[in-house]
């Protein structure tokens, strides 16, 4: 089947499937949507831009906290607050990414990665300590969409209405001249510089855009799971987008979305049966890294080749 065929099938499934799911699984589906956006946006940074960030979870977390603070502390009527949520979550994450990115892209490779890590931990510490604003260790709970949107099915379609266009925008981005420059940047930044491109500025822009979309994902997820915790910003959380992207395959645009779906479903199924989800996840990562470096989409390509 041609890609267009798969896409149509996927779109149909996304629209129709939730009607057949139980409430529990609709919540999972919403989680999949949010994490798919998270993973795909992260891969624009990693797979297309060649920048491995150890601190991308920071922006997912900032988006989540921004959404929570907006709903609970801004003193706005729930309907108004909710209407502003996508914008606020993205803006907050974009600002954070701009600050972090400004300092981080001046360095390459390992120092870039450690800088993003340090900034994520800084934000984690702030989330833990600014108890007045963020609830500290306890996090923020009791978040829910207002009125009719509190029904899981309704919130699912709301999330889809945000995630699908967001993914489309990201896809246009990677197919655009900016996207070409990004891929060239990953291949040979010095060559691109000598062709007249301000490499650092492009890296910063990519960092901010992908951070903003991660923030949107965090905001969407915060309202569906109902809470935000400092743990979203702890250093162990920075593995999540990397795992999802590599699991799905970093060489395709939607590969990470598939990785996200598999990751979320596995987490739900395994955590439901045992407390040793970290052991399971760690083992899956080991298998992935040692035996399946191309990820699931890579495996599929090999089968059809």
């Amino acid at each position: 089947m041609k890609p267009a065929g798969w896409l149509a099938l996927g779109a149909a499934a996304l629209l129709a499937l939730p009607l057949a799911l139980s409430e529990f699984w609709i919540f999972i589906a919403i989680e999949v949507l949010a994490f798919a956006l998270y993973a795909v946006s992260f891969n624009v940074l990693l797979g297309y831009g060649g920048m491995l960030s150890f601190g991308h979870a920071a922006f997912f977390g900032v988006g989540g906290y921004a959404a929570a603070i907006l709903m609970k502390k801004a003193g706005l009527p729930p309907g108004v607050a909710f209407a502003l949520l996508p914008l606020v979550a993205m803006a907050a994450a974009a600002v954070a990414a701009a600050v972090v990115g400004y300092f981080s892209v001046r360095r390459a490779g390992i120092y870039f990665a450690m800088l993003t890590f340090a900034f994520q931990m800084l934000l984690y510490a702030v989330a833990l300590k600014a108890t007045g604003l963020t609830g500290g260790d306890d996090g923020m709970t009791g978040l829910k969409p207002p009125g009719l949107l509190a029904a899981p099915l309704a919130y699912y379609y709301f999330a889809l209405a945000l995630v699908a266009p967001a993914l489309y925008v990201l896809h246009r981005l990677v197919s655009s001249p900016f996207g070409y420059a990004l891929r060239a940047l990953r291949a040979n930044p010095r060559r691109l510089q000598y062709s007249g491109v301000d490499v650092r500025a492009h890296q910063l822009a990519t960092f901010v855009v992908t951070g903003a979309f991660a923030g949107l994902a965090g905001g969407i997820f915060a309202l569906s799971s109902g809470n935000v915790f400092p743990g979203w910003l702890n250093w162990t959380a920075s593995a999540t987008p990397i795992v999802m992207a590599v699991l799905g395959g970093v060489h395709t645009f939607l590969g990470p979305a598939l990785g996200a779906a598999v990751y979320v479903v596995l987490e739900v199924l395994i955590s439901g049966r045992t407390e040793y989800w970290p052991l399971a996840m760690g083992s899956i990562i080991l298998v992935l890294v040692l035996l399946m470096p191309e990820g699931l989409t890579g495996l599929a390509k090999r089968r059809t080749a």
Partner: protein
Amino acid sequence: MSSPILRIQGLAKRFGGLQALGGVDLALERGEFRAIIGPNGAGKSTLFNTMTGLLQPDAGRVFLEQQDVTGKPPHVLARMGVARTFQITSVFHDLTSLENVQVSLLAHARGTWSAWPRARTQHVSRARELLELVGLGGSAERKAGTLSHGDQKRLELAIALAGEPRLLLLDEPTAGMAAQERLESIRLVHRLAGRLGLSCLFTEHDMAVVFAVATRITVMHQGKVLAEGTPAEVRARPEVQQVYLGEQVKVAA
């Protein structure tokens, strides 16, 4: 008296204890095809790196057609019409040849901030033109990393030309090639430079290549300019002969 397209005054660069460039003076006239020769460690690559802003000079000035461009970063110089190739061929290895040139054309057109239109169809005919110009017409769809060494050098030339430069800086453009290929390659560059009205500064080890195309030669030694002039003038200078003592100086008949 036309003003030189490139003027370097007293350019100096030190790495720890090593004075890689000890005050280099050079003036390149429009349309010149100048070779820079000198033994390894003479400072040729450092000169290119420092004059294009990849490294910051410790002292000295660089003028591009009267404008002071000292220390300006490479992407600024590229936009002002300076193109460069590297000693170790530098292309976008996992993009196709066509995409390599397309990206360079997009960069030249200042289009890399455009985030919505589809890039695949942009600048295609011009990209193919440039590939034909350097003799890579048939390799448009091949990934640059899979091209032969010589073809990668051609691709890098196409990338450089995509920027519609006025000044071409070629760092050992024939490195790694067999003798015959070297002459062909430098003659191609010479032809194109003449046709497009480009001034060219290139570093080189092979004297046959130098004497085949260079209008003037600058000899560098230990970070300074040792001698400069026409090939005949330079060849006759005793200091130059001394520096190259032991090296086989191939002289064109």
